């Protein structure tokens, strides 16, 4: 096993004991170590929430932005320098609630970012309100009669919008999750990894016990993840069985390959040429 301690820092962790985020954090470290990406070569971008604190607990570059807005920040960084390796951490409220529109746009762009959604089906940091993935009927202090709407299915959503890399992980399956993250980082387009994350403080339904009997791993040999229909069906499995693994993957080109001004290299690496600019302006 590769050394993951290089990603440790001495900043105090602020999560609750037993929180599923610890597993995700470990999986991230593992995948970075396995891929031999040095701490200073990784950029983590996140929104606001418990999930979004993740970058603080890693030795790395990070931009911990606004609630819901991690994807535009990450997109901007990627457009500025498409050589960067960018991982995005968001909560389910962060990504599918406040940030829903940016997820749709990231899917359309198919920009080469790896998005990890710590999906605990609740708003953790704000003390337990329903999130877009909370099930119909889920009771909280803000929803004392239970959630009246239906839960969002983020993976089906991604597939419906032409996503090329759609996966689900589970916070307890660290090794498996770390492989998903590796695959996501290696993927040339936008990769969405929705992670079943247990919140021990505010979600008393989707617990370790809940997942224990339901979660099963897609067999890489058997399931090729290249059939959209089959993938759509898998994303709709939930009640009794919940598949984890790469659910769909197709060949793709990254957004940054499509943009004219980026063809001579990352924007940040191109040189300032006052003469050329003067000429261009004068020609108008």
């Amino acid at each position, binding site marked *: 096993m590769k050394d993951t301690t290089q990603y440790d820092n001495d900043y105090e962790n602020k999560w609750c004991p037993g929180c599923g985020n610890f597993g995700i954090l470990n999986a991230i470290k593992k995948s970075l170590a396995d891929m031999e990406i040095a701490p200073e070569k990784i950029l983590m971008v996140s929104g606001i929430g418990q999930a979004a604190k993740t970058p603080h607990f890693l030795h790395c570059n990070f931009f911990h932005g606004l609630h819901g*807005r991690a994807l535009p*920040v990450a997109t901007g960084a990627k457009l*500025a320098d498409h050589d960067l390796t960018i991982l995005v951490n968001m909560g389910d409220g962060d990504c599918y609630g406040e940030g829903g529109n*940016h997820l749709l746009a990231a899917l359309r762009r198919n920009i080469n970012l790896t998005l990890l959604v710590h999906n605990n089906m609740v708003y953790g940091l704000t003390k337990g309100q329903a999130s877009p993935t909370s099930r119909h009927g889920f009771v909280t202090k803000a929803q004392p009669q239970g959630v009246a709407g239906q839960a969002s299915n983020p993976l089906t959503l991604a597939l419906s919008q032409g996503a090329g890399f759609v996966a689900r992980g589970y916070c307890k399956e660290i090794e498996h999750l770390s492989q998903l993250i590796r695959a996501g980082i290696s993927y040339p387009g936008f990769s969405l990894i929705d992670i079943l994350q247990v919140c021990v403080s505010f979600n008393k339904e989707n617990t370790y016990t809940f997942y224990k009997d339901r979660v099963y791993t897609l067999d890489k040999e058997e399931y090729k993840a290249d059939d959209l229909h089959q993938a759509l069906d898998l994303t709709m499995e939930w009640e009794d069985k919940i598949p984890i693994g790469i659910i769909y993957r197709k060949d793709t080109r990254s957004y940054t390959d499509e943009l004219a*001004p980026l063809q001579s290299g990352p924007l*940040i690496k191109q040189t300032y040429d006052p003469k050329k600019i*003067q000429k261009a302006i004068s020609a108008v």
Partner: protein
Amino acid sequence: MSIDVTVTIGGEAGQGIQTVGDIIARVCHKAGLYLLAINDFESRIRGGHSFLQIRISDQPVLAPHHKIDLLIALNAETCVRHKKEMAENGLVLLDVENDAEKDDSKENLPEEAREKNVLPIAFSQMAKDAGGKIMTNTVAAGACLALLGAPFSAFEHILKTTFAEKEKILRNNMIAGRSGFDAVKNTAFAKAFDWPSHGSAKGKLLSGSQALAFGALAADCRLAAFYPMSPATGIMIHLAEFMDQLPVLVEQTEDEISAVNMIIGASYAGVRALTATSGGGFSLMTEGLGLAGITETPVVIINSQRPGPATGLPTRTGQGDLLFVIHASQDEFPRFVFAPGSVNQAYDTMIRAFHLSEKYQVPAIILTDQYFNDSLQMTTREMEVPTEIVRFITTDADMSSPSEYKRFAVTASGISPRALPCKGRALVCVTANEHDEAGHMSETIADRNIMVEKRQAKIQGMTEEMKGPDRYHGESDVLVVGWGSSAGAVREAVDQLRSENFNIGALHFSDLWPFPRKKAQDALSGCKHFITVEQNASSQLGRLIRQQTGLSFYSAILKYDGRPFTPNWIAEHTKSVLEEIR
């Protein structure tokens, strides 16, 4: 000014008003005349009424005129709409559908065409005869230029460059242009003038939007993220024209929230980044502005004002966002606010804004408006591209120990050395939460106080960078005080009033925040009274001056109808105030 003619071309949206205006403007410009053109159009694509108004002179023109000398009416409604604005000897050329030969049978004409000063001309018929109705614009331009006294060769020259590529089209347009030109041969036009014979262009003719876009390019802006919104879209369109030749990416986003966050991400990663929007979009960017504030990320945001609230008047002009942009976003952090008053100043301001934003690691906001963005103006100086861009960026090489790099290290100036992520061993850690020097979230009283004070500390240096108001006869008893795009109109109003022997001058603020308090106080200290002139309903600059200096305006001349100032309008209103003072 021996020459000062205002030509208005009016008609429905979609009739090609722009084309007529464009030809006239280019012919005059090429001949060495000065000009300024404003664009008036509704928030629709076809129909309704719109017009383009060009003021032409042998002296620099700073603002539109309130009277029309020559009206090219592409439909009858245009006559009705602009009747009251016609100058005493003004002439109207009205396109009538019937044959030009039958001009004398006035009874067949629309009522408007029967007026004394209206010359019915069958522009469209002549165009059809020349090969197609689409050339109506060329006919009209020809007639207009002939009346102004232009030699046909000047017109010809522009037609040739316009239709350089397609020979047949050019030929037809030449015929069309000629017929328009000849149609008014025998018409006397009071404001016809001696056309400059060997003139050469007196400056660059360009729109406010273009000046802003060029400034961004010259400032080495690499990413321009935006969501379409009038009147700001033009800036981005003009930038997009360079995507195939320069390292600049124009990226349309899903919404304005994305746009502002995207440029913050890009700037964090190391490139200069811009967004442009109008008030509604700026509202949505308010939270992101605070993100730039707390993460100390340089970004430039153009807010091209239009009247509000909310959707308001999408294609009209206003100055209602000054106090909003100064105070926008929760809690406090330093920012720059600029409002240029001319195309040259706009170009320079873009360069300055990017420079200062990066120097102080704060957002810079540029306030323009629809009038400014959509009008054609002339430069008075070369637009020079800086030979070098100072980036204020730190690398491992500058650090004794990159592994101990702290993005928010405390310094006396409040400015911490800024490194870029993934460019060395120094980790660049940034958060929207309050934080310690290393960029990690912190809730301690000590860190909070340190960071608030560090951010506030920048204000001193920033204030020193601010220019005081531009003074024009600043020693006068009474000063008219404005900001932003009204600079030219105010100055001409002062000229007019001074020619009527009023003891009056003007101040123009282009640097608004941090407010140049000391310089403003100095500039205002000599006058007996000052009067603000603004396009809003509460005198926002006046309130800002009082907030910052305690000095109160005597009166505020306010216009909020969405249409640009004319010097005359300002002068007349100022006179009323002056009478009160007396």
